[in-house]
């Protein structure tokens, strides 16, 4: 293991870390420094598989995964508690902050302009750089995992790994992935109706204007790529309604947890800079419609 990166203690954690933990930087293209945290398996690190975890965005940190999802610790105020359902109960896990500019990752040039190709290329370089630091893991079964916009990061890295026989790449797992823009845009409208977020009269307006012969089967409807004004308008009204009620889009039955202060800020800036945290089909509908149409759609402007 690469001893310079070893983490011996974490503030807020009572007692020792029970498994080997490393945190440091991996090399992407020259001048690019991508931060990672690696936690060995709590089961059998010498034989358990190795997983790379990527959060999405684009622009969101995989330390969100580490500290709020499947990582070994949860932050509770200034204290750390153990996550009994951490995935490092069964696997060795690398959490990579990518691309440069995300989390603690940075580039010497300060250039944070990225695309899917450059991101996957840098992720591959970083992964190779990780294996240089930890050569003892070369023969472990290796998996790509992640969620949301990692639905792009993972498949694009996967095809690169097909050309890398030195890495024992076995497979991938993608959670709530941004896998197809049009499919997710179209499904979001149906999801909204079938979860009671828009009513039946609005649904009828959408169906009659967006679907061939009013047939609502998925193959007959296109809410995303439509050129029909009535369809665009109906979908925009529905999406504006949902977007302006402070519904938690990430989990519709959970509360909207934004703090009072950030809610106020969010309300003020939301039209232009709505978060890209886990880029979504739903927001893309909203964005596309707002940009492509000059419709007179009423919006509730919350002050």
């Amino acid at each position, binding site marked *: 293991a690469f001893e*310079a*990166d070893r983490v*011996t203690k*974490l*503030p*807020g954690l009572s007692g020792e870390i029970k498994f080997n933990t490393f945190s440091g930087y991996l090399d992407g293209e020259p001048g690019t420094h991508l931060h990672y945290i690696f936690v060995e398996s709590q089961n059998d690190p010498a034989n358990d598989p190795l997983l790379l975890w990527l959060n999405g965005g684009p622009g969101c*940190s995989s*330390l*969100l995964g580490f500290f*709020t999802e*499947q990582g070994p610790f949860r932050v509770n105020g*200034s204290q750390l508690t153990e996550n009994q*359902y951490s*995935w490092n109960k*069964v696997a060795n896990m690398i959490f990579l902050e990518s691309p440069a*500019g995300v989390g*603690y990752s*940075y580039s010497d040039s300060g250039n944070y*302009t*990225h*695309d899917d190709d450059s991101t996957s290329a840098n992720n591959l370089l970083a992964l190779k750089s990780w294996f240089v630091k930890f050569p003892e893991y070369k023969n472990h079964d290796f998996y790509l995992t992640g969620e*949301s916009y990692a*639905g792009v990061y993972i498949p*694009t890295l*996967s*095809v690169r790994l*097909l050309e890398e026989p030195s890495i024992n790449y076995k*497979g*991938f*797992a993608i*959670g*709530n*992935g941004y*896998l*197809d823009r049009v*499919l997710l845009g179209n499904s*979001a409208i149906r*999801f909204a109706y079938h979860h009671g977020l828009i009513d039946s009269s609005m649904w009828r307006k959408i169906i009659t204007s967006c679907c061939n012969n009013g047939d609502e089967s*998925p193959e007959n409807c296109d809410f995303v790529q439509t050129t029909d004004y009535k369809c665009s308008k109906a979908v925009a009204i529905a999406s504006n309604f949902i977007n302006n009620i*402070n*519904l938690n889009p*990430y*989990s*519709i039955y*959970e509360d909207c947890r*934004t*703090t009072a202060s950030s809610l106020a*800020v*969010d309300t003020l*800036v*939301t039209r232009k*800079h*709505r*978060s*890209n*945290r*886990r*880029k*979504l*089909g739903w927001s893309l509908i909203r964005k596309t419609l707002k940009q492509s149409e000059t419709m007179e759609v009423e919006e509730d402007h919350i002050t």
Partner: protein
Amino acid sequence: QTIPCVDDAILIRYLGRNDVRQALNIPSAAPDWVDCSTVVSSNYTMQNPSLKTQVAASIKAGKRGLIYNGDTDLVCDFLGDEWFSDQLGFPQIGSYEAWYVNGQVAGFVKHYDGFAYATIRGSGHTVPEYRPAAALFMIEAFLNSTKF
């Protein structure tokens, strides 16, 4: 930067502490930690409106796949990713069925030749956050090639 309905203030405060940065070997040249970077997201170019080609190529190359969705997420909803799975063109094996954790329905799963599509019942966008036990069960089954 704010994220709709998500409050990461505690984590941002923790990872901004000097003693935490020191413990994680973060140099002073590294930026302040934030959950999501507006600079990165606003300067990012999306080049792949669909990942069908890459996912299909990976599966054809013999890589095992799992596509899973928390089913209360509106952001990247389960239906769109189910359609995506269907359209990859791999034959379905068996029927759509429930899978269980501790005797309770944890979600539903569809197996295809080379990969599986699964939902996690009642989970939002970040499955290991909302349904940690089911998520661990699922990933362990996947890694062990155990049908679930």
